[in-house]
C-alpha cells in the first residue's frame, strides 16, 4: 500500500479537490455535542471535524437510503410500464470511520456478493469514494460505547477504503487503499514519509488499542459460541426481549442491517412510485406473514432473531463476517439498554454464571 504525509492545513485542499468530482459528505458539529454527516460547501468547509464522536445517523444511508424511490410506474390501456429511478450521484464520504467501512463491506457482500445484484445499491456504491479516518483520540473519536476492537474492525481499517487518513500529531498519514485512491497521492502537497512515520503509526495504534480496555468491551466469542449451539435459554431471551420497546432504532443505526420494506404510492391518475424504506426485525408487522401466521409473535422471539443473525456462526459463514462492526450506535439508541454490548454481557453472565 502506498502512503504519503499531509499537513493538517492541507486537508481542506484535498477536500476541495474531491469536490471537483464528488459531492463530499463529512462530519460536522451540531447542537450540544451532536455530530452529523453533511454535504461540504464553500461556506462550511472550514468547519469539517475529523476528531468528533461518530455521527449517530450511519453513513450506510448513502448506499441504502432511509427512503428511496425505486421506480415510477405508469398504467395505461396498453399495460404497466416501469421506469427505474437510479441515483448515480458521485459522492465522497470524507471522514468515515473504520467501523462504518466494515459495515459497507458487509452490505456489499449482501447486496452485490451473491446471485442477485441489487441495481439500486450497485449504482450508489460504485459512485461512492471512501476516505476513512483512523480513530486516534479517546473520548472523541472513540466514544463511550465503541468496541470496534472486539469486532476486529478498527480503530484502523485494513481495507475497504479508497483513502485513509491518520493523525500522527504534527502531520497526517494518507494511505491509498485502491487505484482510485492512489491517484490523489501524487498531489503536490503530499509529502513522502519515512520509517519513523510508520513506527509512529504503530505506536499510536498500539496506545489507542490499549486505552479501549477502560471502555465497554464485548466478549463476542462466548456469545457466538452459546448462540450458535442454541445454548442461550428461553428465559434469558425473554429477559432481553422484555426491555425492547420495538422502536427499530437498533436496525436503523446498524451499519450492517439491510432489511427494507416497499410501498407503492399513487402520485396522480395512472401514475405511482415504488419506494423502499428501512425496516426492522424488531417490529411485529415485519415478521408477520401474509397468511396471518407470525413465527415471531412474541417480542423476545424477534429480539433473539437479531442476535442470531448477527452472531450465529452459520450466518457469519454465509455473510462473510459477523454482523456487528462495534460502532456502538445500538447501545446509544436503545431505550431498554439492550444494544449489542449489553446483550453479549447478559448472555455471558446468565449462561456462564460469570459474576465479573
Amino acid at each position: 500500500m502506498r502512503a504519503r504525509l499531509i499537513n493538517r492545513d492541507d486537508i481542506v485542499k484535498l477536500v476541495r479537490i474531491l469536490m471537483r468530482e464528488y459531492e463530499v459528505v463529512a462530519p460536522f458539529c451540531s447542537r450540544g455535542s451532536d455530530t452529523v454527516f453533511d454535504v461540504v460547501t464553500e461556506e462550511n468547509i472550514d468547519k469539517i471535524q475529523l476528531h468528533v464522536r461518530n455521527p449517530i445517523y450511519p453513513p450506510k444511508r448513502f448506499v441504502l437510503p432511509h427512503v428511496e424511490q425505486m421506480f415510477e410506474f405508469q398504467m395505461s390501456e396498453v399495460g404497466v410500464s416501469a421506469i427505474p429511478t437510479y441515483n448515480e450521484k458521485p459522492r465522497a464520504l470524507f471522514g468515515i470511520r473504520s467501523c462504518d467501512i466494515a459495515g459497507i463491506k458487509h452490505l456489499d457482500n449482501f447486496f452485490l456478493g451473491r446471485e442477485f445484484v441489487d441495481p439500486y445499491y450497485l449504482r450508489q456504491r460504485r459512485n461512492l469514494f471512501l476516505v476513512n479516518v483512523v480513530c486516534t483520540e479517546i473520548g472523541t473519536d472513540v466514544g463511550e460505547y465503541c468496541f470496534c476492537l472486539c469486532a476486529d474492525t478498527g480503530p484502523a481499517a485494513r481495507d475497504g477504503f479508497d483513502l485513509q487518513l491518520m493523525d500522527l500529531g504534527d502531520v497526517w498519514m494518507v494511505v491509498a487503499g485502491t487505484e482510485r485512491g492512489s491517484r490523489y497521492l501524487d498531489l503536490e502537497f503530499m509529502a513522502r514519509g519515512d520509517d519513523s512515520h510508520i513506527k509512529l503509526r504503530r505506536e499510536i495504534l498500539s496506545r489507542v488499542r490499549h486505552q479501549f480496555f477502560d471502555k465497554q468491551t464485548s466478549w463476542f466469542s462466548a456469545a457466538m459460541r452459546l448462540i450458535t449451539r442454541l445454548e442461550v435459554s428461553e428465559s434469558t431471551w425473554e429477559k432481553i426481549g422484555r426491555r425492547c420497546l420495538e422502536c427499530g432504532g437498533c436496525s436503523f443505526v446498524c451499519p450492517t442491517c439491510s432489511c427494507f420494506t416497499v410501498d407503492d404510492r399513487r402520485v396522480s391518475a395512472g401514475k405511482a412510485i415504488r419506494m423502499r424504506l428501512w425496516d426492522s426485525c424488531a417490529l411485529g408487522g415485519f415478521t408477520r406473514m401474509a397468511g396471518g401466521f407470525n413465527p415471531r409473535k412474541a417480542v423476545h422471539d424477534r429480539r433473539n432473531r437479531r442476535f442470531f443473525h448477527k452472531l450465529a456462526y452459520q450466518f457469519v459463514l454465509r455473510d462473510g463476517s459477523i454482523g456487528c462492526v462495534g460502532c456502538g450506535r445500538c447501545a446509544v439508541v436503545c431505550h431498554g439498554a439492550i444494544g449489542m454490548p449489553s446483550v453479549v454481557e447478559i448472555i455471558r453472565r446468565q449462561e456462564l454464571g460469570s459474576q465479573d
Partner: protein
Amino acid sequence: MQQILTTCPFCGVGCGIYLEAEVDRVLGAYPSVTHPANRGRICLRGWHVHELCITPARLRKPLLRKNGQLEEVEWEEAIRFVSERLESIRSRYGPAALAFLAGPRCTNEDAYILQKVARVVFGTNNVDHGYGAYTNTALEVLLRSLKVPASPAVIEDVGEADLLFIDQVDLSRQNPTVGGWVIRARESGTKVVAVSYRRDRITLQADIQLYPQPGTALWLYGAIAKVLWDRGFIDLEFLQKYCINADEVLRSVQQYDLLRAAEICDVPPQLIEEAATAYGKAKSALILCSTGGEARDPLDLHAVVNLALMRGHLGRKGAGLLVLTEHCNLQGVCDMGVLPGYLPGYTSVFEDEAMDRFQTLWGVRPPKKAGVTATDVFAGANSSGIRACWLMRFDPLILAGFSRAFEALRRMELLVVQEAFLSPIGKYAHVVFPLPAFGEEDGTYTSTERRVQRVRPVVFTSSVMPGWQLLTELAKRFGHRWAYSKPADVMEEIRQAVPFYSGIGYESLEHSFGRQWPCTQDRPGGTTRLFEDGLRERQFVMTPIKVPSIPAHPGPEYPFRLVFGQSLYFWHRDTYVNNSQVLLREHRVLLLDYPDGFVEINPTDAERLNIRDGRAIKISSPLQSVVTTARVTDEVRPGTVHVPFFVREVAEALWINGAEEIGTLSKPVFVKVEPCAE
C-alpha cells in the same frame, strides 16, 4: 443536503430529532444524541416521521364543497366563502354559535392566533383544544393544587430518582421515550412501583406491580396514604408549612382501612403495604402520571397529587411529580389559552384586572363568560347551539369520547377544517384549508417538561398558507389588521400575553435545546424544575378524599368490569400514523388478526367461560348487549373486559350518557360475558 434539528410531532416528550433534507425533499430522520429529553433515543414514530413529509396524500390547495363534493379552489375563493358564511351565522345567531377548536398538534403560534381570532374578531370564548375531555381534568387539578398547570418535574428526573411510582399510564405506548428512561433507571438500581389496570411492557418489569380493579384507584391510594401515615412516612412539617387543607387530608387518610381497600381493589394487602413502604422510604421518589390518555375522575388525580405532597419531595432533583402529556403541543395549546375558561397564560375570563391587560394588548375586551368545550359540542346531547365550527388540526371523529360527533357535525352550517391531510372529518367539511405538514412548518411546541422548542421547516411549499397566516387574513376581512409576517412576530406578542413566556424569543430558542418555562426577563435561561428555588408558605392546596362508597353493582350476574381504553391504541387512528406506511402497518397489526375489532379478556376468565381467542363473544350490561370478537390476553387482569376505543359497535351499544361518564377507568361498566354461537 442539510441536517436540521427539530421537535418530534408525536407525543409530549418533545424528543429532539434531526431531519435530513435535500432542496425540496426530506430524506430521513434521526435522534439528537444530546437532547436532554431523549439523549439519542426515539420511538418508532420518530424514526418514521419523515414519511409524513413525503406522502403524496398531502393537501396542497383549499377544498370547497360544491354540489356535495369537495373541489379544489383558489385560496381567495375559499377565504371569501368562509368569511361570508361566518358573518352570516354570527349575525343570525350571535357569536355564541361559533366555536374554534384546535388539536394538540398546533404550534403555539397557530394556537395563539386561533384563540385571538375567536375572542377578538368574533367575541366568543368558544375555544378549546379538543382533548379537554381527558386533559383539562389534569390541568385543573394541577392548577388548583400546585398553582401551576404543568409538570413540576422534568424527564431527566426519571434517571435521578431512587424510586419511580408509575400511575396508570402505559409508557411503552404513550410516551415510549419515557418508558425507556424507566427501564434504564431500573437497570441501574432504581426501584419501580407500577399501578396499572393492564400489564404492559413497563409495568411487567416493575419491582412491585399493583393491578387494581378498574374504578378502585381511590381506595388503593387511600390505603397507600394510610400506610404512609401509620409508619410515619408523611412529612408533617412540610404539610403544615406549605399545604392548605393538610389537617383535613390527614384526618380523611385515617378513615381508610388497608385490608378493606385491598379487598375492594383485589390486590394483596402485603403488596400495597410493600409499595407504600418503598415509596415512603425512598430518598427521592418520582410519581409518573398522564394528563389523560384515559378519562379519569379528578379525585383520582388529586389522590396522586396528595401522595406527592405527603412526602414533601417537590422541587427536589429526581423527585416529585412528572405529569406526561400525550401530544407534542398539548401543554402549549393550553398555555396559549385554547381553553374556554382561560385566556393565554391561564388567566381566568372572570378576572377583571387581567382582562384590562388583554384589552390593552388586543384593543378588545374578551367576553366575561366561559365558552363551550369541545365535549359540549361533540359529546353532549346536541344542546351547544354551535352552528359554525372551525377545526384546526383536530378531528373529533378519531377520539373515543366523541364517537357520536357525526350527529353534531351534520348540523353545522359551516365546518371549516385546517389539516395537512384529509382525515375522516373531511366528509363533513364545507371547506378544507391545507396546513403545512411536519417538515414544512415553522413555529414552536411546548413539551411535557415545559420546554418551548422550535419546529423548523426543512422544505418549503409556497402554495400552502400556514395556519396563523390564514387566520390573520381572515381577521383582516373583518377589519382587524394584525402585523405578523412570520411566526417569530406572533411569539413576540405571546411574550406579552403569557407572563411565564416573557423571556422566550426565537433568538433565545436558537441556543441549546429550547427554554423551559417559567422563562422571564429575570430568568432568561428558563426553569428546569419547578419549586427548586424554595417554596412559599401555604403554597399548595391538598384535597381531602373521603372513603368512597362502593359503586352500585347490578348484581352477581354482571361480574366483569368493562373499560373503554384509549392508551394502548392511542396512536391507532392518528392522522400522522395513518399517513406513514410503516407506522400504519405496526399500529394496525392486531387488526389484521382481528379484522372486525376485538375486546380483551384474561385467559383464566376465558377458559372458565369457554371463550376462545378470535371467536365471537357476547357482552351484556343490564340494559343492552353486543356481540364482538374476543382477544384472549394476559395483558388485562382477570375480571375485566377491555375495549379499544375504536371498536365503535361496543361503545355505541353500551352507550348511556356519553363516553366520558361511563366505561372510564374511574367508572367501569358492569357486564356479563359469554361465548356466542357463530
